[in-house]
């Protein structure tokens, strides 16, 4: 399976990452090599595998839906690059009329 420049450009867009032409070309090679490597999974017969059966030994337990103390808005936005009045500040996302 080989990867094209357009594939890499599409992936970069999905990933919200920007690459130079040079990096894009490098990714074409790298991803092609990696995909050849991961092709090993096709050696295994999986026709009898039931994916719905859990791989976790213990039963998943749900906790009670109780109100407990949690972080304040101020504590949360303390790490935000930009904030105002306990809210995250972002550029305008909806066009002004």
């Amino acid at each position, binding site marked *: 399976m080989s990867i094209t420049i357009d594939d890499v450009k599409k992936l970069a867009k999905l990933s919200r990452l920007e690459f130079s032409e040079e990096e894009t070309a490098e990714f074409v090679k790298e991803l092609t090599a990696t995909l050849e490597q991961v092709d090993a999974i096709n050696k295994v017969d999986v026709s009898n*595998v039931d994916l719905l059966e859990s*791989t976790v030994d213990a039963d998943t337990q749900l906790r009670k839906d109780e109100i407990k103390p949690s972080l304040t808005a101020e504590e949360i936005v303390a*790490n935000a690059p930009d904030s105002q009045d306990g809210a995250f500040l972002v550029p305008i996302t909806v066009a002004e009329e």
Partner: protein
Amino acid sequence: MSYLDYSLTEVLALLNQGKVTSEQLVNECFERIEETKDLNALNSTYYDEAIKRAREIDSARKQGDKLGILAGVPIVLKDNINYVGTKTTCASKFLENFVSPYTATCAQKLHDAGAVVIGKANMDEFAMGSSNENSAFGAVKNPVDPTRVPGGSSGGSACTVAAKQCFASLGTDTGGSIREPSSFCGVVGIKPTYGRVSRYGVVAFASSLDQVGAITRTVEDNALMLNVLAGRDEMDMTSADIEVPDYTANLNKGVKGLKIGVAKQFYSDELCDDVKNSLNKVLEWYKSEGAELVEIDLPSLDTALAVYYILSSAEAASNLARFDGVKYGRRAEEYSDVVDLYFKSRTQGFGKEVKRRIMLGNYVLSSGYYDAFYRKAKRVQKVIRNEFVSAFEKCDVLISPTTATPAFKLGEKSNDHVAMYLSDIFTVPVNIAGVPSLSVPCGTSSEGLPIGMQIIGKHFDEATLYQVANAYELAHKEGQ
């Protein structure tokens, strides 16, 4: 002899006997950190806070107050574990200034047991790497030979323990990130069963594989650490509600009658001679102690690395989608609109390896490829897991090399990501199967570099791993 030459267990006894204070230990650790700062093992340290806490513990001990089982012992956390009020950077430019607003359960448990957190360890960015060369804050050096890598991604955690900057550390292991560096640095590291230790508050890489574990200088120390760390946490739905035994209970019991599995797939041609010879000696020794060696077949083992790169990258791409330059971390200085803000912040904030995994992850999850890669890999994962479960019907533990070679040179594989990925070939299958595994030093190479063996056990049977490792360690202490 410095107090730093003692193990965690030994120094606890000295603390309890009043022969040393926690304050003295913290001071000695900081002196050692200063002397060995070129190793670049730590991203941050907290001297003032650590001394304050050590004094509190010392005075509580003097008054005869009831103390936790790790009271007064200096420890280090990997820099992807939140500890309130401290920086948690994941060794990424993206989180360079992130300050934890809360504490991870594993760190809280150590704190509650009286451990004194003195700093955070360097690592590969977002735990992606096998050499600790992917840190935004520079590579970590191997304390045994500073021209070599300490392994990764918990390279700083292994280095800080091996260099005696602290008595134990926490690492995380998604595909070998505790065991490979432990092996390279000559220390003891456990990847517990998936679900044994809570990951609440630990920055996620691949959530279906990540586990937290301890790195220590002895097997007994490691068992003690897991006693503190293990158990159900209602903040992590994947943590198992399975009783936590006393992991030190099986120490000093020997290995007579135990069945040790040897799978030929772990003893491939890739092994260097020194590693092969060390492992042969290990197996002979166990046999001479009354253990039975059992031949095991794990036919799909060689596909585990492929499964790992599909699953871990897919999960990483999803987990790292939250880093958008809005909620926390770095925001690009210049951007045209909100979407451009995402693009620019992520492009400037993430390092090369992280971008590589995000790209691969989004590829295997993208429309048209999801079934061929992600779902297929999940199915193969199940096959591998079943092979391990069947193996453990015939043996109590499996023993393999942790890595095919000792620590490699800095820069040797940094431009060849495929060669780098192969460093984890023996550790990755353990995460894929969800079983526990302990890396223990088992000799040195002709160049004097540490060699590690990996003892793999049944789900939730860490106690037997410690039993098997402890027997070997006791018989092979320095000078014996």
